[in-house]
């Protein structure tokens, strides 16, 4: 799982197999050893050995059971070697060493994964730590891969992960699924960590590349894993739908030169139909959940769906989008939601109506998408001088390189007084 495997398709398949099993094997080891760090070390060593062994001798009939048994043995070896151990770890040696702990059933493993998920996304861990732990422990990326994905040096990432596991151990972050009273809020925390990972990949906030595909695909995998171990939760289904419906457009967001392409100008034939279908079918399921108000992820997915099924920017059903934004404001009233609602109103009723909505939003005046939206609406309203000033202001604000180039291009176009249509580059 560490080496690129282009020249060895067998190895690529093995990597995938091992990575798919990683969260279950690790979660099971965390429970039986009671130690996050020990479990990670044991599973890591076991996986390296398995890849080596299996590429020579083939995959055993039950790879998951093989991995769990081998990782338990490895944990016992590691404990013996270290010598110094706590009572709790000594007790787990005795248990593991007797070898009579049965291999858990799939359902039990699902519960272990769920516990691991709530441990990694515990609200007492910094958000950056949660995302790093999620990639390492639940997606099975190596420390080097996590460091690359989150734009950190490997040494700094290794330190962060060691500190995180130390906090989990000594501060006593529990390895359990929260009770029914806390569950909705804690689940919300898990899902927002996943969505943050997706967004970090989809709208990279820094660096040369505006898209980081590994992060988007890992967050989609993670959301599917949550849905598998905690089925029937409308928030989870809504988020999965939203991720597919946004990711479907990712290929069209960059042109051949690597420049960002806004939603109005995207080549819609590049949109991924399989992802759109998957997102639509999940949205259908989510909309069948009876509730007075839609879950915010469901409303956002519905908005993304309106864009995904529109044949062109002009033929988009803006009335439907505005009414979903109204629903979203009712359940999650944030300045960013109001910004996107204002952009949609600008499309439905014209730039002056959009600008009027923007005027009513506070606290966003230095948020780049807000400044860009105002510049676009001013340009469309024919207020060229004001539009140019806003484009220049937007260029000065932080953002990735491709976004800046797009703004410079729009500024040049507005100098030519181009009344082109505007807007939210991503439609959500």
């Amino acid at each position, binding site marked *: 799982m560490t080496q690129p495997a282009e020249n060895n398709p067998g190895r690529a398949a093995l990597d995938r197999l091992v990575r798919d099993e990683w969260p279950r094997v690790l979660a099971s080891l965390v429970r039986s050893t009671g130690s996050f760090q020990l479990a990670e070390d044991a599973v890591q060593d076991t996986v390296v050995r398995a890849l080596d062994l299996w590429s020579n001798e083939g995959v055993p009939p039950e790879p998951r059971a093989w991995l769990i048994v081998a990782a338990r043995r490895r944990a016992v070896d590691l404990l013996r070697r270290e010598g110094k151990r706590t009572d709790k770890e000594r007790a787990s040696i005795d248990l593991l060493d007797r070898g009579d702990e049965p291999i858990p059933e799939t359902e039990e493993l699902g519960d272990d994964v769920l516990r691991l998920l709530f441990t990694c996304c515990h609200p*007492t861990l910094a958000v950056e730590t949660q995302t790093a732990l999620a990639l390492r422990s639940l997606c099975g990326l190596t420390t080097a891969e996590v460091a690359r994905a989150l734009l950190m040096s490997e040494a700094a990432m290794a330190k962060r992960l060691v500190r995180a596991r130390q906090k989990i151990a000594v*501060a*006593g*972050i*529990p390895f359990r699924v*929260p009770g029914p009273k806390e569950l909705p809020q804690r689940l919300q925390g898990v899902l927002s960590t996943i969505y943050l990972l997706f967004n970090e990949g989809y709208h990279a906030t820094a660096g040369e590349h505006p898209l980081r595909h590994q992060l988007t695909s890992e967050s989609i995998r993670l959301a599917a894993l949550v849905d598998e171990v905690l089925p029937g939760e409308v928030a989870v289904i809504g988020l999965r739908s939203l991720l597919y419906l946004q990711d479907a457009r990712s290929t069209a967001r960059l042109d051949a030169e690597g420049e960002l392409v806004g939603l109005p100008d995207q080549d819609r034939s590049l949109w991924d139909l399989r992802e759109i279908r998957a997102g639509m079918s999940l949205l259908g399921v989510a909309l069948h959940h009876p509730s007075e108000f839609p879950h915010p992820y469901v409303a956002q997915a519905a908005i993304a769906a309106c864009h995904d099924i529109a044949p062109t920017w002009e033929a988009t059903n803006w009335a439907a989008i505005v009414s979903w934004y109204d629903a979203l404001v009712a359940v999650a009233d944030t300045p960013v939601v109001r910004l996107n609602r204002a952009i949609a109103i600008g499309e439905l009723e014209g730039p002056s109506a959009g600008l009027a909505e923007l005027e009513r939003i506070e606290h966003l005046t230095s948020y780049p998408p807000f400044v860009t939206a105002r510049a676009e609406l001013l340009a469309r309203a024919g207020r060229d001088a004001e539009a140019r000033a806003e484009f220049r202001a937007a260029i000065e604000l932080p953002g990735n390189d491709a976004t800046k180039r797009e703004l410079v291009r729009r500024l040049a176009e507005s100098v030519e007084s181009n009344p082109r249509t505007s807007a939210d580059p991503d439609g959500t």
Partner: protein
Amino acid sequence: MPQYAALVYEPGDPDWSVIDSAEKEEIMGEYGAFGATARAVIRGGAALYPATTATNVQVKGGKGGEVVTTDGPFAETKEVLTGFYLMECADLDEVIGWAAQIPAAWYNRVEIRPVIDLGDPAS
């Protein structure tokens, strides 16, 4: 079971040895109520006189060197440590639940730190 120190930080430098306002009396009452409710998990703790009564001790040149004392806190700070509880809880979630009932958490903050088990420090 792990033990945790819940360190109580308050703005300013209140003197809890003197109850000279209705507000202080009310807060004292809340601390009393917390102590009673959390009796099962509290293993120790204390309220501290103001930081203006503090003395800092340093030994110049390390062990065996000259003992130098300075008055009060090192510098003006926005908040000071005014007390602490030692609590024994099953895990972090449980101690967070208790710490949230300490009045300082309502108007400033309570810092939870896991305690290292070194056995009896006096032995």
